[in-house]
C-alpha cells in the first residue's frame, strides 16, 4: 500500500489532490484493495455541485458496492470517462487514477482531511494490522 505525501485523505477512503483551485479526487490504495476487482464506476455529471462528506457516486467490485464521498465542496468540472470501459485501472493504479475534478468552493476544506501518515495510521487502527 502506498499513500502519496502530497495528497490529503478522507476517513471514507478517498484522496484529494489540490492543484490551485482544482481538486482532483480518487480512491485510496487501501479502498481498492478492500473492494477487490472493480467492475463498475458511477460518477456525477459535469456541472453538478457536491458537498464535502456527501455521496457523489459509487464504485462496485464483483462482490460489493461502495458509495463515494466527496472530500471537498465544489463543482464537478470533469469526470474520468475512461473508467466506464476500464474500471479495473483503479485496482492497478489507485493513486494515479482520478475519478472527478472539482472547482473547489473553499480550498480550506483540505484542512479537515488527514495527511498521508495520519491516514496510514487510521487504516492500520481500523483494520487491526
Amino acid at each position: 500500500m502506498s499513500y502519496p505525501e502530497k495528497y490529503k485523505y478522507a476517513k471514507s477512503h478517498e484522496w484529494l489532490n489540490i492543484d490551485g483551485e482544482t481538486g482532483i479526487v480518487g480512491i485510496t490504495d487501501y479502498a481498492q484493495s478492500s473492494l477487490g476487482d472493480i467492475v463498475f464506476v458511477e460518477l456525477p455529471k459535469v456541472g453538478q455541485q457536491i458537498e464535502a462528506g456527501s455521496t457523489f457516486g459509487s464504485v462496485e467490485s464483483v462482490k460489493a458496492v461502495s458509495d463515494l464521498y466527496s472530500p471537498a465542496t465544489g463543482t464537478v468540472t470533469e469526470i474520468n470517462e475512461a473508467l466506464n470501459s476500464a474500471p479495473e485501472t483503479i485496482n492497478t493504479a489507485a493513486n494515479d487514477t482520478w475519478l472527478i475534478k472539482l472547482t473547489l468552493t473553499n480550498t480550506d476544506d483540505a484542512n479537515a482531511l488527514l495527511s498521508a501518515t495520519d491516514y496510514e495510521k487510521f487504516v492500520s487502527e481500523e483494520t487491526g494490522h
Partner: protein
Amino acid sequence: MTETATLRRTALHATHHSHKAKMVDFGGWDMPVQYRGLIEEHMAVRERVGLFDVSHMGDIQLRGPNSLAAVQKLLMNDASKLQTGQAHYSAMLYPNGTFVDDVVLHKLGDNDYLIVINAGTREKDVAWVRSVIGGMTGVHVNDFSDYYTQLAIQGPKAEATLQKLTGVDLKPIKNYWFTWGQVCGCHNVMIARTGYTGEDGFEIYIPSDEPTSSRVWGEVLAAGEEFGIIPCGLGARNTLRLEAAMALYGHEISDTLNVFEANLGRYCKLDKGTDFVGREALAKIQADGGPSKKLVGLEMVERGIGRDGYPVLSLDGAKIGEVTSGSPAPFLKKNIALAYVPIAFTEVGTEVAVEVRGLPVKAVVVPTPFYKRPKITTPPITAPLS
C-alpha cells in the same frame, strides 16, 4: 481480533493465512473469500483448475438395515435409484414443502448413506435428521462433519491434476459418481466427481488433522502447477455457482420458499412410492395449479448491477419480486441475477427492471443455467500427411 475468535476454523486456517487470503465470516466460519483476486480465481476454474477448501460443509452418515427407508422419508429425491458409488442432488424439506437444506446424497453401500450438507445449517440439519428419523429402528445417525477436510478441485484440468496424486483411474468416474482410493498417501479417500462451480471437477474427503490437511493442500497445488492451478475462495465459488444457476441456501432456497417455486421439481419425486416430509403439501400445491411465483434468470440490459435483495419491478414500476443472488459474471462478462417473479413474468424474453439504489435498470428473463460447460469432445483423428 476478538470477534474472529468465536468463528469456527477449518484445519487449513493457518494455510489460508500463509497465502494471505482475505477472510470473511461465512455462516459462522472464518473462511477465505479470495486469495489473489476473485476474477482471476473464477477464470482459473473455467479455463484451467482451482482448489477450494470446503471443509466447512457437513457430513451426516446414516447406516443400518433401515437406512434406505430413513433416507427416503427424509429427502425428496428417490434414493432407491442410486447405486453404490453414485450420488445425487436432493433436499430435506419441512412439512409445508419449504427447505431445511439442500444436500448431496451419496450411496456408500447397501444400508450406508452419506448426506453432505451446508455449513451454515449444520446444527439445524443434524437436529432435523434426528427428529425426523428418531423413532425409527435399524438406522444409526452419525455426524462426521469434523472428521473430514473436504477439498474441491475444479476445472477442465482437475482430472489431470488429481490423477498425478492417485493410483485410481479417474477417467471412468462419471459425473456425480465416486469411488475410494489412495490420494497423497492417505488410504480410502472418497473421491467424488462433484462440485459447485458448473465445471468438471472432484471433491475429496481426507482426514481433518492439520498436518495431513495442509500437506495434501500443498501437494494438490504442486501437482496442478503445470496447469496453472491457484487457490480459490468463496467469492469465486459464489460467482461460479451463480453462472451455473445453482441454488444457495438462504438465497434461492429457504424455509419460506418451496421446491416448485425454486424450480427444483425435477429433483423431487412425489411418486417414488414412499412418503417423505413435505410430500403432501407439495402434491397439493401441484394439484392446485402450481406455485404463484418462480425463480428465473435475469440478465441486465441497461448499465447497472442487480444484487442480492434488490427489488424487481415491472416496466410500469410496480414491485413484483426480489433478486436472490446478483453479480457481475466474470466469465460471461454480463451482469446476471436469479430472482423470484410472479408466473406471468417467467417467460424467457420478458422485460422487467431491477431497482438499483432507487433507479429502475432494465433486465430481461433469460434461460438458466447462464453458463453450461462445453461438452468434452475427442479431438478428431487427423489423416497423416501423404
